[in-house]
């Protein structure tokens, strides 16, 4: 029986950064291929969940890529405010990954 574990326990890197001024991109690198594959197969990380997590109205704007060579899942979302615009709170987008720590992956 698969039991849910905190994503931080099976990820070596969880990070975010601007992908140019209008997008945030988040990368989760898993500690091995098996955990990566289980995370992908679980479907925990999906457009609907990410849209809810980041309060995005249109879940079709969420992009998710599974990148086996790097044992990584990439998530790209639009910024509410472009980098450095009025109301932006994270110019480089370096702290937007934090909500991902709340994810649990069944392994």
């Amino acid at each position: 029986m698969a039991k849910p574990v905190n994503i931080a326990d099976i990820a070596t890197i969880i990070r975010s950064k601007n992908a140019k001024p209008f997008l945030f991109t988040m990368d989760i690198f898993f500690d091995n291929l098996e955990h990566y594959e289980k995370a992908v197969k679980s479907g925990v990380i999906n457009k609907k969940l990410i849209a809810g997590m980041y309060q995005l109205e249109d879940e079709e704007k969420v992009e998710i890529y599974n990148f086996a060579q790097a044992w990584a899942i990439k998530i790209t979302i639009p910024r509410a405010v472009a980098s450095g615009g009025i109301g932006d709170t994270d110019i480089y987008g370096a702290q937007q990954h934090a909500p991902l720590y709340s994810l649990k992956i069944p392994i």
Partner: protein
Amino acid sequence: MDEIRILTPNGSIGSGFPEELFAEGMKRNPQAIAVDAGSTDPGPYFLGKGLSISNKRMIKRDLEILLLARDKNNIPLLVGSACGPGTRSTLEWTVNIVKEIAREKNLHFKLATIPGDISKEFLKNALKQGKVRTFESAKALTVEEVDRTANIVAQMGVEPFIEALKSKPDVIIAGRAYDPAMMAALPIMHGFDEALAEHMGKILECGSMAAEPSSGFEPILGTIRKGYFLVEPMNPKSKCTPKSVADHSLYEECNPFKAGLPGGSLDLSQTIFEQTGRMTRVSGTKFVKDTYTLKVEGAAKVGYRTVFISGVRDPIMISQIDYLIDEVTKNTKAFFRDVAEDFQILFHIYGKNGVLGKAEYIKDVKPFELGLIGEVVAKTQELASTICGYLSHLSMHLDYPGCKATAGNLAMLYSPENIDAGEVFEFNIYHLVEVESPIALFPISFEEI
């Protein structure tokens, strides 16, 4: 020519790199030194103002080492997006530093400069002809938007660099450029595979970030041959592994399998990364040709900012923070209602949701301390300053339910407490423009130094 070796000192000049590691790279007899010098990452201010993102002392330090090394080995130095937003003003600023170094070190060379600025007329014409594409900003460009822009640049591709290289310059300093273009130009000029050359450029342009351990402040060598390229960090304690190089494909990219560039895109879905000693061998990357487009970037002024920075430690005040913010905002807006259209009030509450805002998912904590930043953005600095003064004073003294600390609500950090932060810009142009010629917009000029 069987191979071309390109040495890149770091991810961006002005951030520094260890001289001894760079000297190690020069021992490999690279045919060119290529480096990026800019970014949109620090935000729209630098493009709006036309100012460098780095300080002169740092740029001069890095450039001096590169100019001396290029002189000794008699190879070209290619610098792109000089220095920061890559506007004509920052390009000239960089060229002045280059000339200053040449005078001080008695260096002589043929200098090529390639500005990357785009005129408003050109862009408005392109708009009329339906040649402007909307993409990541998801907002169509208008003539009015172009008109209110302070500075506009376009990311040049490899072609202007190749055009310049034909005249055998020793140093090329370019305005805004696609980051990998400086590294890819010489290999493409000599007939090496375009996809591999651009992919190699994408890895090199971040310095040794694709190595393990990762460092954007250390040199990296790229060697391109027929059918593949090799990347090797110059720090002997680091290596490029298939995993570290594959990992880097994700960095600051929205899609790890496809990267748009002038003239098409790179398809990385079939790329193969293999270990060869301390190097990684990369092959299989494909180039998908498309209509030639340039990425155009612009920033416009939206006002002037004044802020105050304070802390809250009183537990009752902390519990009433939302009440306080609502009340002072309402009251300030009412007081300045005659100029209601000319300003905005923002609060940032660190310890509550200062970073994530609406996306903050931890809601049930009781912080013992909050950082409170009040911000006013207004049409003039004088107005921002005036309103922020009113706002901070009110925030300091407003009565709230249960208040016992009647002498003041905030621990103000600085005197003066209201800090004028100057002009505020926003990225208002971030679009693709179809062009017939990859070089026509980028006039090259030469000068003997």
